[in-house]
């Protein structure tokens, strides 16, 4: 397998211009003769489908929810970055590029990240024009805040609902194209297989989630925008339906899977409260701007927080990282929370929590200002925990949040299968080993509005494809495979539900492939996952039938894929004998407990190639070279 990034060479600020100039164009009159499938209607998918439709292609867009407007992007709270430098506080395209690369711990590709920073400014313009109600200053200009440890104010936001508003903008653009007849929307439809003909991605096989019908869709190119795989941990901040099925099935057809072990644990989530818990709720990390994080100095100190005197509290982030304090990047904040809880100093009933305390902020700025800044978040916290954060400190704990890993793509966002493009959280491209806050929304929209519409066109113009339709034998074979898998899942009729298995898988992943990892833990995780998977295929019980709406069946297929992905994540984490970003290997740390990267041996993208059900996947390496930013040890001290 060849991993050619196809990134042009030359001065970095000219690359994207030059690449666009060199791209082949599709004759406008011919565009409607080309069908492009877009799977996913989140920020990445909806923006791509809308723009491709606008250009005149014949687009088919799919999502599993009842409406494209419900994609998981809707839940993003904090904001979206852009190097507008509206505040003259020293921001620039180069600085955003630098911060993203450094934040990713030097495990991403320079040309891609530079392009992302460049395009960031166009995204804001586009969204404003669509009517996204971004926060404004009294003078009517766009407001910004600093976010996730950035030292400039470059985050644009719409209250605590930035993802919702950006997605509605993209959804409305998409509906405009549905109205004009350029996009056909298939909601409540799940992609269950990719169809590859003569080495090119030529279509998908889907299940209609209402009627159960298995259907084929042929195309000239397929775009996957199916989001992240955080739900492999069962408990995560992702929506319940988020899954890896589309990218996993593409992987099985030859799309390389890059850096699967790079996952992000978000430091500020509401702690787990019981066995029934179905998901975890994120509290925006903007809270760390004014809240102070602490635990008692003594282990097993069960006094209520207000009875613990100031000098018996450990503000451990402020102590260890005097210059960044509570604003250290996510990976650092999460790992430190785990460390103090492991020492027995965690708070709350389970001992898995730390305080996020606003009493100083309330004293300093007054309760009204704190309410204005965080009122809706405090309300949400109280709704869930029944505790009032104006009076008692919040309890928070890290939770699985984001997948940096995903299908490998080149500079053009094409996977190792020609004609298969991957965008948004589903690809691995821009965030390296750790993503900065407010950068996922930026990436999804950059890919969808401004990159794919060019690169898909270049592929179509430059590729001679045989005319095929869904009656081609590759489709009938894929349909038969999907039908058989469904029948198999329904036929087991064992003694345990899908969720029972999923929770157990999640626990293994969280314990051994979560915030900190060891060789022994990962090896044990791999064997536990294999055992549990075997049991799954013997003992799972899926109710209902194949030919109507069956949510238990939908879950069963997704969990089957999570098992396999989980194993690959552990394998990847095991092979990467260094600590970087969200990947912390206990064996590789500095004397004072910080992550120790090993650039000499591991400055590469790990891309795994599927070799068959009973074969070990093969590792390919795309070396990373840095011409503009010299890799340094991250320090937030």
């Amino acid at each position, binding site marked *: 397998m060849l991993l050619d990034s196809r990134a042009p060479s030359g001065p970095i600020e000219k690359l994207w211009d030059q690449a666009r100039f060199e791209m082949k164009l599709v004759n406008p009159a011919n565009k409607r003769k080309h069908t492009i499938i877009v799977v996913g209607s989140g920020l990445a998918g909806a*923006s791509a489908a809308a*723009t491709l439709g*606008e250009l005149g292609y014949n687009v088919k867009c799919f999502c599993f*929810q*009842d*409406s494209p*407007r*419900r994609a*998981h992007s*809707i*839940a993003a709270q904090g904001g979206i970055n852009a190097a*507008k430098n*509206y505040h003259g506080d020293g921001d620039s395209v180069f600085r955003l590029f630098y911060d993203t690369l450094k934040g990713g711990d030097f495990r991403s590709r320079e040309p891609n990240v530079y392009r992302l920073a460049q395009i960031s400014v166009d995204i*804001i*313009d*586009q969204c*404003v*024009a*669509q*009517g996204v*109600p971004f*926060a*404004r200053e009294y*003078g*009517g*200009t*766009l407001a910004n805040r600093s976010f996730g440890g950035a030292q400039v104010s470059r985050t644009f936001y*719409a*209250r605590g609902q930035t993802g*919702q*508003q950006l997605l*509605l903008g993209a*959804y*409305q*653009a998409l*509906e405009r194209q549905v*109205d004009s007849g350029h996009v056909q*929307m298939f*909601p409540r439809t799940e992609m269950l297989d990719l169809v590859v003909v003569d080495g090119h991605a030529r279509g998908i096989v889907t299940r209609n989630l209402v009627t159960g019908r298995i259907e084929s869709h042929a195309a000239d190119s397929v775009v996957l925008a199916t989001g992240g795989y955080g739900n492999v941990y069962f408990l995560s901040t992702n*929506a*319940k*339906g988020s899954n890896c099925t589309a990218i996993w099935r593409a992987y099985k057809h030859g799309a390389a899977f890059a850096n699967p072990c790079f996952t992000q644990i978000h430091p500020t989530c509401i702690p787990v*409260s019981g066995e*029934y818990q*179905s*998901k975890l*709720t994120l509290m925006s990390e903007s809270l760390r701007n004014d809240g102070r994080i602490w635990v008692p100095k003594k282990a097993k100190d069960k006094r209520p927080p207000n009875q613990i005197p100031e000098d018996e509290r450990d503000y451990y982030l402020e102590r260890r990282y005097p210059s960044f304090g509570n604003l250290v990047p996510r990976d650092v904040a999460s790992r430190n929370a785990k460390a103090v809880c492991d020492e027995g100093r965690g708070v709350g009933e389970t001992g898995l929590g730390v305080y996020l305390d606003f009493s100083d902020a309330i004293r300093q700025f007054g309760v009204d200002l704190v309410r204005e800044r965080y009122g809706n978040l405090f309300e949400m916290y109280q*709704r*869930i*925990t029944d505790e009032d954060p104006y009076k008692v400190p919040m309890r928070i704990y890290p939770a699985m949040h984001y997948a940096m890993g995903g299908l490998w793509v080149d500079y053009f966002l094409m996977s190792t299968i020609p004609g298969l493009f991957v965008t948004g959280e589903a690809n691995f491209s821009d965030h390296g080993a750790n993503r900065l806050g407010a950068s996922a929304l930026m990436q999804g929209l950059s890919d969808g*509005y*401004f990159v794919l*519409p060019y690169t898909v066109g270049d592929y179509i113009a430059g590729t001679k494809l045989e005319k095929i339709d869904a009656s081609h034998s590759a489709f009938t074979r894929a349909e038969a495979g999907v039908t058989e898998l469904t029948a198999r899942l329904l036929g087991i009729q064992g*003694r345990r*539900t899908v*969720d029972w298995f999923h929770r157990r898988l999640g626990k293994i992943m969280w314990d051994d492939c979560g915030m900190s990892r060891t060789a022994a833990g990962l090896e044990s995780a791999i064997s536990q996952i294999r055992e549990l998977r075997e049991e799954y295929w013997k003992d799972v019980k899926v*109710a*209902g039938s194949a030919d109507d*709406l069956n*949510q238990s069946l939908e879950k069963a297929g997704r969990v089957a894929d999570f098992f396999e992905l989980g194993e690959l994540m552990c394998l990847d984490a095991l092979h990467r004998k260094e600590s970087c970003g969200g990947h912390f290997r206990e064996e590789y740390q500095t004397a004072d407990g910080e992550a120790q990267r090993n650039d000499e041996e591991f400055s590469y993208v790990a891309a795994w190639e599927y070799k068959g059900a009973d074969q070990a996947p093969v590792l390919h390496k795309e070396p990373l070279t840095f011409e503009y930013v010299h890799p340094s040890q991250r320090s937030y001290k």
Partner: protein
Amino acid sequence: MKLILHVWRQKNPAQAGRMVRYEANDVNPDMSMVELLDVVNEELILKSEEPIAFEHDCREGICGSCGFMINGIAHGPEAATTVCQLSMRHFKDGDELYIEPWRAKAFPIIKDLVVDRSAFDRIIEAGGYISVPTGSAPDGNVILVPKDASDRAMDAAACIGCGACVAACPNASAALFTGAKIAHLGLLPQGQPERHQRALSMVRQFNAEQFGSCTNIGECEAVCPKEIKLEVIARMNRDFIHASLS
């Protein structure tokens, strides 16, 4: 605590539905309403019965997937709260909960608590957007937007498209949903060029679906989890009349 649930079970649109009684014996007050249904469903599956179909995804009140009637109230008794965020501590031991799908001609039942809300997408498709081709936008600060306008636009834009307003309305009108989008876009300078045409097309589509018309009862506002205000309907009517006259 223990709760008695009466849940609407309907296999598909063709078959008749009925209320079925379930006992939930081990309800934790910290659970959400949908987590309670998860627990009931786990038991049903193990008894080889079909689990209760209901929609949900984000489980944090933002995607608009979830929604059903609890004791006759859309999204249940708590104000400004979707069922996925409705905590069981608002109920007490022994309470009986009657759980039914949204009932509206425009939202046909698909299965159990799942209804078809695609009419909402068609209303947006008819004109709920600003026509701006990708890449054609001026710098974001070229057109200033008064803070007050953007705040009010945001209030209206907060609608999650859940359908509770339709379910609560005795006429099953979609006025609050449609008005929210018309108000959101119409309050912004960017939305002016298409403002009246937008109102015209969206209201026409809303009338073409099976929704009833608005007679100012206000039940929609009372149940809306995002506290969308009735004034969006007044705005919609103004823009619509303006467009029809010109």
